């Protein structure tokens, strides 16, 4: 599990995705193949700004074990200003979130693995001007 976390550090800590030089589309998480251009595509690293809007959301009341202490928490799909959408928690009260809410990325502790005690970090989003 440790190695699996290291592998994603660039993406989860620095929000680095990929951009297809052929069609200009931006992907997050990064891809090795552009699904639109396939063999004609050429992908390069692309750093996302971390600003976006809530596209949709839910408030989780029945969590997996590692998230039990956070309930209820807000999970959302955020549409980044560069286009890609990503799944993340919103660091706000359940009653504050709405579709269209402007948010920006923050780095937080995501969860703790019960068995091996590893703490996983990654991105969450918080309301802008908060």
């Amino acid at each position: 599990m440790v190695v699996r976390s290291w592998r994603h550090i660039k993406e989860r800590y620095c929000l680095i995705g990929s951009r297809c030089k052929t069609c200009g589309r931006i992907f997050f998480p990064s891809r090795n193949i552009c699904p639109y251009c396939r063999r004609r595509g050429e992908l390069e690293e692309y750093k996302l700004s971390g600003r976006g809007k809530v596209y949709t959301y839910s408030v989780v009341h029945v969590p997996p074990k590692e998230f039990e202490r956070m309930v209820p928490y807000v999970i959302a799909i955020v549409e980044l200003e560069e286009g890609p959408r990503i799944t993340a928690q919103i660091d706000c009260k359940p009653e504050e979130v709405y579709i269209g809410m402007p948010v920006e990325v923050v780095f937080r502790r995501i969860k703790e693995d019960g068995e091996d005690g590893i703490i996983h970090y990654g991105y969450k989003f918080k309301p802008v001007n908060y």
Partner: protein
Amino acid sequence: MRDVVIIGYGQTKFGELWESSFRDIIVEAGIKAIEDANIDGKDLDAIYVGNMSGGLFVGQEHISSLIADYAGLTPLPCTRVEAACASGSLALRSAYLSVASGHHDVVLVGGVEKMTDVVDATSAIATAADQEWEAFFGATFPSLYAMMARRYMYEYGLTIEELSMWSVIAHDHGSRNPYAQFRFKTTVEQVINAPPVAEPLTLMHCSPVSDGAAALIVCDAERAKDFVSRDDMIYIRASTQASDTISLHSRESITTLKAAKVASEKAYKMAGVTPDRIDVAEVHDCFAINGLILLEDLGFCKKGEAGKIVAQERIKIDCEDFLTVNPSGGLKAAGHALGATGIRQVGEIYWQLKGDENCRGRQAPIKHGYGITANVGGSGGTVCVHILSNNRR
């Protein structure tokens, strides 16, 4: 390609089957199907089984060997097929292709899941989503559908009352099905006021955790005459499948399942029918919102209209101006034993089109003789559609 028919079906009750093991339930379903088809084990050429995760739920992989062994059917080739909650209908599709191609004549196809043996079912079910980019951040499987529901409400003005009517009708149908997990009726108020799971979805918008198994016998249409009369053969007129991104967030729209649209359009073409000729459907309502979305994606109404149709109860068995939807009670009330669900859906349509006595009290009006199933894996990453018919054409 040869014509392929279903000649037998059997299932266990779905629910918390604490007294039965994984192997007990799949063997029970298989024996019932074999008896229903009036065949003998020696008539079979192969076995296919749909199962999402024996490994996570009961700590057992290599269930193909286990099932052939405990069904007393070794050395028949047995193949396990996996596509999360769509595993069952993918197993059927594999069996269908093997018979249509002429490679096999008579095939047993089963689906099975034993879910109540594990403590943290929520984590096990979440493996149907993207582990690294959804589940890692705290997205649960219900929360993905909840986010679809929230966006659908935003785009089309669906109300929580309209959405809740889906569950009310599911429980009404389920109350008439002796194999269903839930046989009690419910009301819109009870659905809305049930404990929240992932807002806006409550426990009563979600299908349950279930144990269950189901099995079908599929057969070459010519060979089938050796076993059953014409009235007991139901034709598989289409078997199609499509894929989509595993993560919900990667899709252009989350208020439609593109894979369901693609697979069903192909299926109508393959069967040579239009949606208005379908009498009865079993659609994958793992969460109430998915039932609504599938009614639209399968072409039964326009985008955004499903909520009104459901609120007017036009999908009910007793209503004749629309097709009947989920006469079994669907995943919501009949239960959702993941790998078994796709087989159970097709089994219900097989019974319905035959006018089988198992449908007493919940027989859909059959006018054109066509039924459809839509079985969804994950949040829509796999969709498998089957169209069945009771006429020879």
